[in-house]
């Protein structure tokens, strides 16, 4: 499930963002959408953050939203070694982002299934900081896939 969504071209290993807004902008930019689509998706993600931070603590955030402007499910992974002030629940900086975005119509419920898988993966990642040490994109993706498939 996550294997299909995790793509090297949707991975940022060295995020430059330092604030929540900058982080969301950097993550959305990776999708290379036309400007109006990019702005509308960003608006929706920011609105989602304004009703409750998706910075779940222990260095991980899972910004997510559905938007009319999308035609399929997208996952963007971003890592910041320095950390981003994301207003996380535990107040600590966020080092790893999983940005999940989907269209409203999602017959296979791929989005909710993916969100559940990411939540489970985040719990495993929270116990280690290994993800801060991997600098090769393929290795990073494989690490996430392997961890997500472990029981």
């Amino acid at each position, binding site marked *: 499930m996550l294997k299909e969504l995790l793509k090297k071209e949707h991975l940022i290993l060295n995020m430059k963002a330092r604030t929540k807004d900058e982080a969301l902008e950097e993550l959305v930019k990776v999708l290379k959408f*036309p400007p109006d*689509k990019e702005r509308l998706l960003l608006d929706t993600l920011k*609105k989602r953050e304004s009703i409750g931070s998706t910075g779940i603590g222990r260095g991980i955030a*899972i910004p997510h939203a*559905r938007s009319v402007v999308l035609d399929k499910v997208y996952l963007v992974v971003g890592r910041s070694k320095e950390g981003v002030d994301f207003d996380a629940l535990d107040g600590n900086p966020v080092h790893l982002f999983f940005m999940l975005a989907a269209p*409203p119509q999602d017959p296979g419920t791929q989005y909710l299934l993916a969100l*559940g898988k990411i*939540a489970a993966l985040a719990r495993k990642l929270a116990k280690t900081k290994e993800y801060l040490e991997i600098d090769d994109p393929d290795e990073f993706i494989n690490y996430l896939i392997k961890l997500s498939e472990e029981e």
Partner: protein
Amino acid sequence: MMTKTLELLVNLQDLVNMEEEIKSDNYLTIMKEMLNLSDEEAEKRRQETLKVIKEKKRVIESQLPSDIVRMFKRLMKRYGRAVVPVVNEICLNCSSHIPTSYLTQPGEVIRCPNCGIFLYMPLPEQGQKK
């Protein structure tokens, strides 16, 4: 070119979708796992979040003409959605053919000539044909 009215309608539709998602039990289960919350804490959080969304919807609705808001609500009631994109000249609500020329007519919003839903025309993405 996206007009201000259409932009507000897309924002409103996304908020309605967010509200429906937060109301669903599947989403609540995921949030409980994600945030390590008890049943009681999760429910409290859900109710607080729904209150904030309601207020945000109210703000957007206040910026839209009242006839558009009425139409949005009518469409939501009828189809469960009020704004859809046109993909490959097809209305994603009723599958009617919508020629590109129809979408370039002047006006703040364009509605499907068959089902009446508000139409959003995404610009082509990089690497896609126009």
